C-alpha cells in the first residue's frame, strides 16, 4: 500500500470575519475516498470551515493542505483547481443560466475532463439531462441541489465540500441524493466533507462523524458508533 496524503488536512486553523475567531485552532483530516459528516449547531463554524478551506473566508493561522499541497494565501479558483469542489449553503446556482451553462461553468475553469465523465455525472441525476436547456432558477429545491452537486462533480474533484445539502429538500429526495453520492464516492475515490444538521443524511453517507463546537472539533465518532448510540451526536445538536 502506498502512503497517500489525505484529500484534506486541516491543522490549527484560525479563521473568521473581520478579525473574529469563528474557527479557533481546528484540526480535521479527510482521507481519499472517505465521507466525513460535520455536525454541530448553527453558528459553531460549519459554513465558515467550508469557506475557509475554499479560501473565501480569510485564514489568520493554521495550515490547510489538499492532497498534500499547501493552500495558504491562494485564491478560491486556484484551490478549486487543486481538486476541491464546493456546493455552498443556498447552492449559489446561476439562476438565469440554463442547466447546460451551469454545468459548463463547472468545467470551464479546469482541464478538460476525461471524455465520458460528464455523462457519468449526468447519469447520477437523470432529471438534469431531461431539462438541459431549462433555466436553473425555475427548478425546485431538490432539482437545484442535484444541479449544484452535478456542477461540482463535473470538474472531477478529489474533494467535495457540501454545505447543508438537505436544507429545504423533501426527505425522500435527500435519501436518494445521499445514496447516489455515496456510491459515486466509493466508485471514484472521491472524498466528501458534508456539513449537516440532518443526522439521517450523514448516517446514510458518512463513514465518520465529526462534531464541531465553538470553532473546534470536539468529538469524532465512527458512524457505526453513532448508529448504535445516536445520542452521541444528538445531545450536541440539542439546544
Amino acid at each position, binding site marked *: 500500500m502506498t502512503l497517500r496524503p489525505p484529500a484534506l488536512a486541516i491543522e490549527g486553523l484560525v479563521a473568521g470575519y473581520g478579525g473574529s475567531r469563528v474557527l479557533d485552532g481546528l484540526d480535521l483530516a479527510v482521507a481519499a475516498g472517505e465521507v466525513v459528516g460535520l455536525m454541530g449547531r448553527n453558528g459553531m463554524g460549519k459554513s465558515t470551515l467550508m469557506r475557509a478551506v475554499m479560501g*473565501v473566508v480569510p485564514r489568520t493561522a493554521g495550515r490547510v493542505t489538499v492532497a498534500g499541497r499547501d493552500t495558504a494565501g491562494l485564491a478560491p*479558483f486556484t484551490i478549486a483547481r487543486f481538486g476541491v469542489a464546493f456546493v455552498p449553503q443556498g447552492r449559489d446556482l446561476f439562476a438565469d443560466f440554463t442547466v447546460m451553462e451551469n454545468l459548463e461553468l463547472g468545467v470551464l475553469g*479546469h482541464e478538460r475532463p476525461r471524455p465520458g465523465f460528464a455523462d457519468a455525472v449526468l447519469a447520477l441525476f437523470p432529471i438534469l439531462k431531461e431539462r438541459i436547456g431549462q433555466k436553473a432558477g425555475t427548478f425546485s429545491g431538490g432539482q437545484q441541489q442535484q444541479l449544484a452537486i452535478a456542477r461540482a462533480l463535473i470538474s472531477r474533484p478529489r474533494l467535495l465540500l457540501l454545505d447543508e445539502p438537505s436544507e429545504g429538500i423533501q426527505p425522500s429526495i435527500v435519501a436518494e441524493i445521499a445514496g447516489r453520492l455515496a456510491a459515486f464516492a466509493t466508485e471514484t475515490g472521491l472524498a466528501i466533507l458534508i456539513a449537516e444538521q440532518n443526522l439521517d443524511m450523514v448516517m446514510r453517507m458518512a463513514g465518520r462523524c465529526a462534531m464541531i463546537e465553538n470553532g473546534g472539533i470536539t468529538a469524532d465518532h465512527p458512524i457505526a458508533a453513532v448508529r448504535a448510540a445516536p445520542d452521541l451526536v444528538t445531545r450536541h445538536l440539542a439546544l
Partner: protein
Amino acid sequence: MLFAALDGLNYVLVIALVAMGLVVVFGLMNVINMAHGELFLLGAYTLSITEMLGGSFWLGLILAPLLLALVGLAIEELVVRHVYHRFLDTILATWGLSIAIKQAVVLAFGPQSRTASPPFDFAVEIFGAPYPAYRLFVMAVSVAVIAGTFLLFFRTRFGLTARAVIANRRMASCLGIDTRRLDRLTFAFGAALAGLAGAVMAPLMSVDPQMGLGFLVPAFLAILVGGTGHLAGVLAGSVLVGGTDTVIARLWSPVVAQIVVFTLAIVVIRLFPRGVVGGRERR
C-alpha cells in the same frame, strides 16, 4: 431633416461605442473607469501620430486598440487591482489617472490640437443629397463593435464565464474560474474599445488633450440612464441621451442641449436607479 437624423444616429452610435467599453468594465469588475475618456484620447492620438509618421489610416485603426489594450493591462495591474474592494476609490484613482494621462499627452505632444485624415473623403448620395461616406463608415464600425461585443458575451465561452462572474463572482471563483485573468482581459478589452472609438472618431474631431471629457460624461449618463445590468441598456441609454441632445441642439443650441440632457439624465437616473431597461442596482 434626413441628415439631421443621420447625424443624430451617428452621435448615438458613437456614444454607444464609448459606453460599451465603460459598461463592460463596470458590469464585470464594478469599476467606474473615469480614465475612459483619456483612453479614447490616446486612441485618437495613436491614429493621428501613425498618419503623421507616414502610416496609413488603417494601420492606425488597428494599432490603436492593440496599444490601448496594453495600456489597459498596465493600468489594471498598477492601479485598479489595488482598489477593487474600495468602490468609491476606483472612481478617484482612475480620475487621477485621467488627469495624469491628459497631462502626459500635453507634455509629449503639446496642448495644441492635431488633425487626423479619414481614409476616404468622398460623399455618397442618399435620397439625392450627398452625405460624407466616412460618417457612414463610423456608424458601421460602431454597429460592428456593438454586435461583436454582444456575440462575445452571449455566444462564447469567455462570455459565459464573464457573465457568471458578473452574476456571482465568488461562486465563479469557487468553480475554478480564474477571476484575476478575467479582470485583466476585461479591463484590456474595455480600454481597447475606447482606443478604437478614439481612432475612428479622430478624423471627425479636433484631436486635442481635452477631447476625452466631451464623450465621457454623456457615455456615463447613457449607461446609468439605460441601466448597467444589461448590455442592451447601453443602447437604450445612448439613444435617449444622444437622440435628445441632437434634437434639442437642432431646435435651440448645443449649449441648451447639453444643459437639458444632463439635467434630464439626472432626473431619469434618480427616478429609475436601475435604468430604463432594468437590471441590478449598483452601489
